[in-house]
């Protein structure tokens, strides 16, 4: 994948099993977000191949909508929900329940949204309903709703792009509970996270990206948290050494 002369990703080979949680880690600019934007149809790759359920995907016809049809959902850091809009819009935007003329069935969307908030996301007695505005919710609640939306649309692969960034500790715990629910429901997950403790705890496999390339693939238990931290520091030192020479 290249943006003009800048090559953002090269020689990337990433596989995700049907019920596997893959942790994607790497420094800023390693290419994590570019990679998931390709997988979720936000960006069109300039080269390479994408297989979903072992079937080759035509990159020209691949889009966010197509990714949704193929049951791939993403929860982006601070980019999943629109602040001024109510939840009944946020939960369905892009996949509204409409008639043939494109008019939204508001009543039905609100019913489903309220059920989803209660049953799937578990907001009981929190004063949050379909008419609540996203701007009034805490960071953890927002990410919970974004993850709940992905699960409601029955995603087989949920991609979490730094879902705990800028959240208070208590809120982080809420989000991690949502991530555990994804695992428990047997779905595949790509989990991008800066906090190594979180990703080390939850991922079945860790893929480390550096300057647009996969530099390490580690299985669960291959390295302790301390060893993983050391490994990443060594990678960074090696890179800086290369740069210095």
């Amino acid at each position, binding site marked *: 994948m290249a943006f003009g002369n800048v090559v953002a990703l090269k020689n990337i080979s990433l596989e995700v099993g049907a019920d596997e949680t893959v942790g994607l880690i790497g420094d800023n600019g390693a290419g994590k977000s570019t990679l998931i934007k390709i997988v979720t149809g936000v960006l069109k790759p300039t080269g390479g191949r994408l297989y979903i359920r072992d079937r080759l995907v035509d990159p020209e016809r691949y889009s966010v909508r197509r990714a949704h049809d193929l049951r791939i959902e993403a929860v982006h850091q601070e980019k999943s*929900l*629109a602040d*001024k*809009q109510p939840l009944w*819009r946020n939960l369905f*935007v892009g996949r509204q329940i409409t008639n043939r003329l494109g*008019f939204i069935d508001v009543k039905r969307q609100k019913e489903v949204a309220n059920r989803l908030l209660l049953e799937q996301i578990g907001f009981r007695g929190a*004063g949050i309903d379909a008419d*609540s505005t996203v701007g009034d919710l805490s960071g953890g609640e927002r990410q919970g709703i974004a993850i709940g939306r992905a699960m409601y649309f029955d995603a087989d692969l949920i991609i979490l792009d730094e879902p705990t960034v800028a959240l208070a500790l208590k809120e982080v715990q809420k989000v991690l509970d949502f991530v555990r629910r994804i695992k428990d429901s047997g779905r595949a997950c790509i989990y991008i996270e800066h906090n190594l403790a979180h990703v080390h705890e939850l991922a079945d496999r860790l893929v480390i990206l550096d300057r647009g390339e996969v530099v390490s693939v580690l299985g669960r238990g291959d390295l302790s948290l301390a060893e993983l931290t050391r490994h990443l520091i060594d990678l960074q030192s090696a890179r800086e050494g290369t740069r210095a020479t």
Partner: protein
Amino acid sequence: MTRRRPAVRIEGLPIIGVLLVLIAVFMIAAPQVFLGYRIYMSFLATVPPQLILALGLTLVIASGEIDLSFPSVIAFSGFLFAWAFKTYELTWLALLLALAGGALIGWVNGVLVAVIGMPSIIATLATQFFWGGITTVLTGGLSYAIRTIDDFAIHDVLVGRIGVVPVQALWATAVAVGLWFVLNRHRFGEHLLFIGDNVSVARMVGVNVGREKIKLFTLMGVLGAFAAVLLTAENKNFFNTQGSGFLLTVMAAVFIGGTSIFGGKATIVGSYVGAYIIGMIEAGLVATGMQGFWVRAVVGLVFLAAVVFHLTMEDSTRMRALLNFRFGRPAPKLRE
């Protein structure tokens, strides 16, 4: 934490209140004018073109964009209509030609913004000058009188009278009802709100941002053209400069109605009432004996006051910032 919301929310309720208060004030200040029905019929005849523009602009601003080219659409499409009628006695085809002209201007705006990525304020400012200039070139700076248009059905259908009620007011109301449903109940309107609220979110959830913007600007062009035809048919005259004073009044109508200048939140009811408030202020000031020169200054002040009011209502820190403002003290960080 429990969040409380009002049990019933009526869209545009505060601005409807402002309109009623304004009518009461003018009834007291100029009873000879405002206690009769004629002035209201005059509003219903003259406000609709600006009202239709304000309704279209509401959608544009909801999406976080702006369109400054509509005064030139009023001139260009008005010219196409008047020229086709005067030269070939075309009526409905003249209407179609005018609408096509407006659609073309809007589509060009949309392409400049969505494909090339020009900021809409620059793109539409440039096209305002361009199409205004083209109209002057095509007309040679002249006006077109189309006095015989009231012999044709199109006049009665678009700007005739039902009893004493001008038909254009009904057209404008129909457009308002249609656009209310588009903005609040249609997929397209929802996409505009998300684009205006947070364009990154809109892209991430699969909204085709470029396509929706082109559709939006084209729609704005068509609405501008329809407004131009109503204006030209009502006046039975095409003026080369028609629409040039609409920029302030149409924008003021949208913003006093309560549409957010940051996008993502808009009210069709607010803009509908806002257009009549502006029309009423213009006429009311003159009726109460104030010199006509003051009208623009007062409308500008009302426009400014309305934006300040809505900004401080949206975010209370803005009011605190305003009250605590001192020269030399750094301004606090505000929400967008």
